[in-house]
């Protein structure tokens, strides 16, 4: 009996990353990929695929951070405007020193995340309202810092982060992949990852198991803020300018990617692989629409429908599973 159980437990190791609900969305991703390559002949070209990855890299990084927050049954609405703030700060400081710019971007993001985390965990205020507030504050700070004007003429080496390649792979994509690998490891193979799922599944039972749940919650928001900081650096480097409104609306795309990837807004279920799938689904669909010359007006409608449809598919597959 014991050995059977251990074998079953050990088996779990590699394939469960693609398990359960995520299988549904993985299938959807594959279908969309096949559909896209049939619809548009240019889709499968290496250049186009590389382009898709480059385009989703920033949202992908934000979504990775957001995954931690949503796994603990929270939400972080501040990340979009935080990209504007951290991107502007990074651009401004990069003019002094590139490394300083990157560092300021990351730290300012993490700092706002810390504020979110403290008010949510210690103040027991609902995450939605806290991050709605810091979303507005971040916008204000970005406008104050820039005076409302774009910051131009960034050092070429800073812009290299956004335009350079490593072994022919865009640096932005390399960063995204690294972020996902680290998150995958953290969520699956560390104590912190176990605690994230536990807090999301049942916070009180986790506290009663001796875990400092407030710390775990604060860390989730700090990670999300830091991810937004990284996103800000990446965006400023890609477009070569720091602008006080450049991240507006990114939070919704990041949250959508997480939800499409099957992570439950109720917390405790889901994961980072799903978020990557969700990010890619959104990226491929908007790429195909661009290739097919679908107007931006219609793109909003299509993306919105995808979000609702994905949430519906996840809900149905959950019901199907519990029926079994």
């Amino acid at each position, binding site marked *: *009996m*014991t050995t059977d*159980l*251990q074998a*079953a*437990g*050990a088996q*779990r*190791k590699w394939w*469960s990353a693609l398990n359960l609900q995520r299988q549904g969305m993985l299938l959807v991703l594959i279908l969309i990929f096949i559909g896209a390559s049939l619809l548009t002949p240019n889709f499968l070209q290496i250049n186009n695929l590389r382009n898709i990855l480059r385009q989703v890299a920033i949202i992908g990084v934000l979504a990775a951070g957001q995954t931690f927050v949503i796994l603990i049954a929270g939400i972080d609405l501040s990340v979009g405007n935080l990209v504007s703030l951290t991107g502007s700060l990074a651009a401004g400081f990069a003019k002094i020193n590139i490394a300083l710019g990157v560092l300021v971007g990351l730290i300012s993001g993490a700092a706002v995340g810390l504020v979110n985390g403290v008010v949510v965990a210690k103040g027991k205020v609902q995450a939605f309202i806290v991050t709605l507030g810091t979303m507005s504050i971040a916008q204000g700070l970005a406008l104050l810092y820039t005076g409302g004007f774009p910051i131009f003429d960034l050092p070429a080496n800073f812009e290299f982060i956004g335009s350079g390649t490593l072994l022919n792979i865009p640096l932005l994509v390399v960063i995204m992949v690294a972020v996902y690998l680290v998150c995958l490891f953290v969520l699956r*193979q*560390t*104590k*912190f*990852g*176990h*605690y994230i*799922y*536990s807090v*999301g*599944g*049942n916070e*009180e*039972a*986790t*506290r*009663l*198991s*001796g*875990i*400092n749940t407030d710390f775990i919650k604060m860390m989730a928001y700090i990670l999300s803020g830091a991810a937004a900081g990284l996103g800000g650096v990446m965006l400023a480097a890609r477009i070569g300018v720091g602008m006080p409104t450049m991240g507006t609306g990114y939070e919704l795309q990041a949250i959508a990617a997480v939800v499409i990837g099957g992570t439950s807004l109720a917390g*405790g*279920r889901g994961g980072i692989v799903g978020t990557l799938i969700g990010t890619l689904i959104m990226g491929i669909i908007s790429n195909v629409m661009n290739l097919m010359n679908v107007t931006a007006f219609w793109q909003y409608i299509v993306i919105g429908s995808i979000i609702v449809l994905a949430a519906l598919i996840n809900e149905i597959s959950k019901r199907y599973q519990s029926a*079994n």
Partner: protein
Amino acid sequence: MHEGKNPILELHGISKHFPGVQALDDVSLTLYPGEVHAVVGENGAGKSTLMKILSGVYSADQGEVLCNGVHVDIHSPRNAMDLGIATIYQEFNLVPVLTVAENIYLGRESGGALPGMLNRKVLSAQAREVLKRLQIKLDVTAVVEHLSVAEQQIIEIAKALVANSKVLIMDEPTAALSDREVEALFKVIRSLREQGTGILYVSHRLDEITQIADRITILRDGQLIATRPVSEVSTAEIVRMMIGRPMDQQYPAEAHSRGEPVLEIRGLTRDGAFWDINLTLYRGEIVGIAGLVGAGRTELARALFGAAPASSGVIRVQGEQVNLRHPRHAIRKGIALVPEDRKLDGLILSRSVRDNIALASLGRLFKSLYVRDKVINTVAGKYVSQLDIATPSLSQETLYLSGGNQQKVVLAKWLLSQSEIVIFDEPTRGIDVGAKVEIYILMNQLAREGKAILMISSELPEILGMSDRVLVMRDGSMVAEFTRAEATEDKVMAVATGVKEL
């Protein structure tokens, strides 16, 4: 007693199969008007499947349901209600912000000036009429969320009455009620019986069934074992039929040898909950704490575990004074709490058996942040087989385990964390008879291994049957201590209720 009456509900050869399990196998049952028919069985015996078939949640694979002699297909909960079959679940379906009257008539409002408008006066008058039929005094304008569980249950019953239900299915109706509230509920059930309602009464509590039920049906592993008049069958017989083997001893009590003191409490107080508690707990003993609900027992347990810290007083663990401000402080000192509500406070239901068992010990098992699956699998597997936890795999979500197995997972978590003092709060609540005995045997085993056990329970037979010493709390104070030999049900109840001071 039912001669000449036609059954209002008949089930013939009902079978239901789920992947991997035959939940019901050829079960037949008859319910007469004015009958209280108890359905008992261990968890997994098929009680809830049977209930769900009757209430339209599941449909049967085979078999036939007759309502007043007519064949019916119950294909939805709405359909069941239309047929006059009402189910009162353990979780109520009431709107907390509406009044008693509004809840009773929800969806059936009438008498408004215009269609869609409410006439509160008419509604209240109607609701009062219904409650009068149940012989219940309750302010119909009270908002439901301010009412007690017992009162909310009455409202559910009143709703069923308004829906003209002829068959009432009750699922563990007394699970959350105090003794006095149970009495009130039984009064309601008796008056419904006089009015000709047939009641299917699903419960674990055999003593209540012998009080209220006319007939009893026993299920085991999805099969019908027997249907008998309650007056003709003993509790022991019922238990034997439920678990399929004779039960020599419901409480496998054994005398333990007391070791050195491991927990000392002096003048422990938490304002508003308990005052000036003194207690010494020794290795190798089981100490029971009896008392009424609200006597401060759970609060004391939570203070000892650091979950809701005491405001003053001294706690010493193995002679060392400790300050317990968070459960992690208590866990580090070897104190564990198996909480009253395991789904709310004991388990992460969305997590696997292995992850739940390991949760409190990750910090001890792994010095760095990195967690090795192999280690978790090995230790979790060890406790799964040691405690005989029935689960298809270590990665099964605890949501899908039975109550007894869930409780064992909670216990495994604390054994792995190397607890020396285990506090059980209502250790066998909602657990079926067979699994209860297993939990008792485990408690004995822990005591034998030299651990100290503090058991809070509202089931007096459990306290008396298992404890080496019995303490009694009343209104936040420790009012009496009995040895195993001294403790009797009468004595403990007298002190717990304050009828008599010692």
